[in-house]
């Protein structure tokens, strides 16, 4: 079909769909504010009671004092509902702990592999004697470990932990989820081993051989079924926005993975199109929705205020679902693929500004006048930093998709810097915050050394900023040199060198922060450090304390 006709048809269909969506939302009264739905994360009487489990009672008290607003004092959380939430937490504790523990292991491994790959770019004769050490394999092991090992595991943990909380009923079929988690991690470990040994499917983000991918897909199905079953048997009436994001994310990643891995179907440029449809959707339809959903839970929960607009958050969900799914083609600008495909993806990349603004406005209004609370709560600091980076990386991504920008930025480290702003600055920082929140509830034990949380935050955030700023600049220089026919290609290599070294510095800080974080995690799990909250996993005393604190 003629591509002009095709784009016209697509634009027409798009407008019609938008019109229907608008009419439908008017009919459903969605444009009227819905405070009840936004407060679904709190039990009765809990609004105004701050909640940061990573804080000591004294620190919690000062956060509470800072968060006080007129009319707060009178409420007492409903004991029955708190009990229900404790039951929900108990039901998910073990599987969630498994996912987080696996995630931490992969973070440590993946970070070190990434730093090694980064160093190899400016020390090209370092660690070259064995095939598994070469840059091409090291970088891919890094990618698989952090994307599938770290982010996917921890996001699964967050989903499994929040589902029962938000649906107000214990998790169903936790054993199936454990089995699924075991399969998923078997696939990740085998995938990394295979890549190291040189067995790969050779597609970016889809390197894990499809034979191993079967374990991943089956594992995801084992996780989805109990989650859906819990969803259907929920006790709450309407779903909170986090549940929307999380359920959809689970379905999307599984479908994406299965379509992307279908053996023997994809070939040539079509495969390239599929490859980037997958590559960008892993970020757009899995990492992003789960992390955004997590922000929608943890941020209001910590500061004890519902998000400003529930409807805006739902608008964000649907626009993200529609636009983000189609942005992948912009990775092939200037490539041998049909022009309409690239144009479609660029248009949808720009449309992504809508969900991002919906999120940003909502969060800005929720946090308005309450920003200083971040001083009291490191957990909140992580989540806020992540939310801010979401806005930044998404807006950057929208403009980066434009042909004029791509002309320079495509094929350079600029893109790599952008990817890390999204996957680390945004997603990983949110995951850190979520883990700091969840772990004390899962283990009934405090983080033994709260100072380390601050160290972790500053090392990680400064590290990723150094990484992003310097590599972005170096990548842009590289692109300009590459685009200029008068300059030899080697110029585009030479200009990046100082910035590649700075990237290693940033990466070094990030790895240092991981060492602190994982060490702290281990200290907590192994009960090192001062014992404050009582040791036993299911000690009644520990629970009693949570009830008193209104959890």
């Amino acid at each position: 079909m003629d591509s002009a006709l095709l784009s016209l048809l697509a634009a027409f269909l798009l407008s019609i769909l938008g019109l229907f969506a608008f009419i439908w939302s008017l009919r459903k009264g969605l444009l009227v504010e819905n405070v009840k739905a936004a407060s679904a994360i709190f039990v009765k009487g809990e609004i105004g009671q701050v909640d940061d489990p990573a804080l000591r009672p004294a620190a919690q008290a000062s956060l509470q004092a800072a968060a006080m607003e007129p009319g707060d004092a009178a409420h007492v959380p409903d004991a029955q509902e708190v009990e229900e939430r404790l039951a929900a937490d108990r039901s998910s504790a073990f599987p969630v702990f498994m996912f987080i523990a696996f995630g931490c292991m992969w973070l440590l491994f993946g970070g070190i592999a990434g730093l090694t790959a980064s160093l190899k770019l400016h020390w090209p004769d370092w660690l070259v004697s064995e095939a598994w050490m070469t840059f091409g394999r090291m970088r891919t092991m890094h990618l698989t470990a952090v994307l599938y090992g770290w982010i996917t595991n921890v996001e699964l943990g967050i989903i499994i932990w929040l589902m029962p909380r938000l649906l107000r009923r214990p998790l169903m079929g936790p054993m199936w989820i454990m089995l699924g988690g075991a399969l998923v991690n078997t696939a990740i470990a085998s995938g990394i081993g295979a890549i190291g040994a040189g067995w790969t499917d050779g597609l970016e983000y889809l390197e894990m051989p499809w034979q191993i991918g079967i374990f991943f897909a089956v594992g995801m199905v084992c996780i989805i079924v109990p989650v859906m079953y819990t969803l259907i048997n929920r006790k709450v009436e309407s779903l909170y926005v986090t549940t929307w994001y999380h359920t959809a994310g689970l379905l999307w990643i599984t479908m994406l993975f299965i379509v992307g891995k279908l053996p023997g179907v994809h070939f040539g440029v079509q495969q390239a199109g599929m490859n980037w449809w997958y590559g960008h959707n892993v970020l757009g339809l899995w990492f992003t929705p789960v992390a955004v959903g997590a922000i929608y839970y943890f941020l209001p929960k910590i500061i004890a205020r519902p998000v400003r607009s529930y409807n805006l958050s739902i608008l964000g969900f649907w626009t993200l679902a529609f636009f983000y799914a189609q942005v992948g083609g912009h990775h092939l600008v200037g490539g041998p693929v049909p022009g309409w495909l690239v144009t479609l993806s660029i248009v949808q990349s720009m449309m992504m500004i809508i969900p991002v603004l919906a999120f940003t406005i909502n969060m800005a209004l929720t946090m308005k006048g309450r920003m200083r609370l971040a001083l009291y709560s490191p957990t909140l600091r992580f989540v806020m930093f992540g939310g801010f980076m979401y806005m930044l990386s998404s807006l950057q991504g929208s403009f980066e998709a434009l042909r004029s920008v791509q002309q320079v930025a495509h094929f350079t480290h600029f893109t790599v810097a952008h990817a890390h702003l999204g996957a680390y600055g945004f997603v990983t920082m949110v995951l850190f915050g979520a883990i700091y929140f969840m772990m004390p509830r899962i283990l009934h034990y405090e983080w033994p050394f709260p100072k380390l949380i601050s160290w972790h935050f500053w090392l990680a955030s400064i590290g990723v900023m150094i990484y992003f700023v310097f590599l972005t600049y170096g990548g842009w220089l590289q692109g300009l040199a590459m685009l200029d026919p008068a300059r030899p290609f080697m110029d585009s290599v030479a200009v990046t060198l100082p910035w590649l070294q700075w990237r290693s510095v940033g990466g070094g800080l990030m790895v240092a922060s991981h060492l602190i974080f994982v060490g702290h995690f281990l200290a907590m799990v192994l009960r090192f450090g001062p014992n404050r909250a009582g040791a036993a996993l299911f000690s009644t005393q520990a629970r009693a304390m949570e009830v008193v604190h209104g959890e």
Partner: protein
Amino acid sequence: MENEVKLTTGAMVTFAIAVSALVVLPYIQVRGVEAPEGLKPYTSAELRGRASYIANGCMYCHSQQPRSESFAPADAKRGWGRASVPGDYMYDRPHLLGSMRTGPDLFNIGVRQPSKDWQLGHLFQPRAYVPGSIMPSYPYLFDVKDEADPGEEVVNLPPGHVPEGKVVVPTPEALDLVKYLQSLKRNYPILPPQPREAEGAKTSSAPMAAQPSSAS
């Protein structure tokens, strides 16, 4: 109940739209494309070399998709060749278009640098040929020994890169990899009607500049 039905169907519908647009439509559009006459299928040695290219992750630094002259004029000027078309990739499973140019595009490396000696030596030690290169060296694709066994080749390296009294012998894997690189010659004519009319994506017929002395 309404909520989760809405959620699941909605999520699947948006997903289906995206699959149709980015996976199914290109599939239909490209399915009919035929390989240009000048393009030959890879030989088994070249395929082994290609597998080694993939296993060692060459595609993470080298693209195989020269851009058009109107969009990025430097590509053709550097001797990377005309803009590629879907037909060029008919035998490519998996595709190796690549997304980075930490090193130069290799779509036509067989035209630009046909020398086997150069390719072998460059794999053994890139900096012996291209000063300032940040490509890793691949000593594990070679044997360094006292003397070559009968039937083995010796890599001719510039002085100073081989230990005193030793010779460098390529493994069969290195030889296959070089055969694959030498096979990357897309300088045959292509037929004009190709599905890429987007602005800045016109195909060009820039003559290939053969520069056997430089790898960039």
